[in-house]
């Protein structure tokens, strides 16, 4: 039924790698920012809030362009990283990790934040009276209770990263084997006469991966919730 070419496989595996790394790298930051927004009141909180959610409302091309003019080879930050550390993001798969991670960040933070806000803070007080400092109360009480939200946030971010197109193609272009993800490959195929059949193959793969991610996250979140309240 599916006849995937080696190029298709390259794009699929690259997409999976980019999305997985993007989620893995951004998850600790996502948890930290979500906790900060859910639990602390500080000066400038609404600004932080707005900046975190900005990629959700900005045109992805704008985000990609902003990345290009900060992290590009000749851009100030990009040139500094390249000259001093030999780190280059522009037109590399690692750059795609950054753009996908940023685009997926708001969804991740939102899901985790909601789950942390739903946790009874008095449980953390109880932990404190039992000798847990803030760090340990967070690790042993807040974090496990937020697990369903963390799983949901990571899955949403994964799906979003997998589908990212505008920011990624603007920042790192569409290089087969380096930055050509499933979405970019589909786009390329639709630009070629007679590419529709091949594009459809990749569309089916994209649907399957996304569905599998959602089903897996639903199952994991259910298990985590059951573990928390069940026997």
């Amino acid at each position: 039924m599916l006849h995937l070419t080696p190029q298709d496989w390259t794009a699929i595996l690259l997409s999976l790698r980019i999305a997985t790394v993007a989620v893995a790298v951004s998850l600790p930051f996502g948890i930290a920012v979500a906790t900060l927004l859910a639990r602390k009141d500080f000066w400038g909180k609404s600004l932080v809030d707005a900046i975190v959610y900005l990629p959700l409302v900005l045109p992805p091309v704008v985000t990609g362009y902003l990345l290009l003019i900060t992290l590009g080879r000749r851009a100030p930050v990009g040139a500094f990283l390249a000259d001093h550390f030999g780190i280059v993001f522009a037109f590399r798969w690692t750059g795609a990790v950054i753009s996908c991670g940023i685009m997926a960040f708001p969804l991740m933070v939102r899901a985790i934040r909601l789950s942390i806000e739903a946790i009874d803070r008095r449980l953390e007080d109880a932990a404190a009276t039992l000798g847990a400092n803030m760090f340990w109360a967070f690790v042993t009480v807040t974090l496990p209770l937020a697990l369903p939200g963390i799983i949901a946030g990571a899955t949403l971010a994964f799906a979003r990263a997998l589908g990212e197109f505008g920011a990624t193609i603007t920042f790192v272009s569409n290089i087969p084997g380096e930055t050509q993800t499933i979405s970019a490959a589909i786009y390329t195929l639709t630009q070629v006469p007679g590419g529709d059949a091949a594009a459809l193959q990749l569309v089916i793969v994209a649907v399957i991966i996304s569905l599998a991610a959602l089903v897996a996250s639903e199952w994991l979140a259910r298990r985590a919730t059951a573990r928390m309240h069940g026997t």
Partner: protein
Amino acid sequence: MLAVDVEKRLGGFSLNANFVAEGGATALFGPSGAGKTSVINMIAGLLRPDRGRIVLDGDVLFDAGKRVDLPAWRRRIGYVFQEGRLFPHLSVRRNLDYGRWMCSQAADVAAFSHVVELLDIGALLDRRPGKLSGGERQRVAIGRTLLMRPRLLLLDEPLASLDAARKQEIFPYLLRLRDEAKVPIVYVSHDAGEVKSIARHVVRVDGGRVTATGGLELLPD
């Protein structure tokens, strides 16, 4: 000995508590909304007073003038909450072990089995709090507090969330607790009957003020 002399404004409500609790059980007695829970939250370190001092056995827990404010997790004061507040994601056994775990103490099998026996919770150890009845939950909460070896026990209306039958179920355990645990107890309640059977000293609280301190004669009949 516990010496409390604190002031705190909470919205439009001003709280001013000044009393001394010797060994044994002292009841903070007064109607709902009198500020009793806020007082013990300040003793536990969960609520920061605006002014005043809290001293336990010569150890200054809070002193606004000297800027001393020991965090709750370093006070070693056991707190049994009205609603138990067991950790829903941990088994009863791990709830009981939580304090020891946080204070990195070695396992004390004798103390553990003593508390389990005292509160009759041996059959519940592998369950989650979600599968416990209200009375069982409260017994586990008492056990969890005892096992952290507190210097002082705070009990905030531990029977209030239970129906009459459950109250009867827990009450004997509270009496055993008072007689066997060798730490002072501060017992918050609005129920004169409860206080009569548990406490020897009474601190009457009303409208955010301590209106009288003394013995059981302060209780209404």
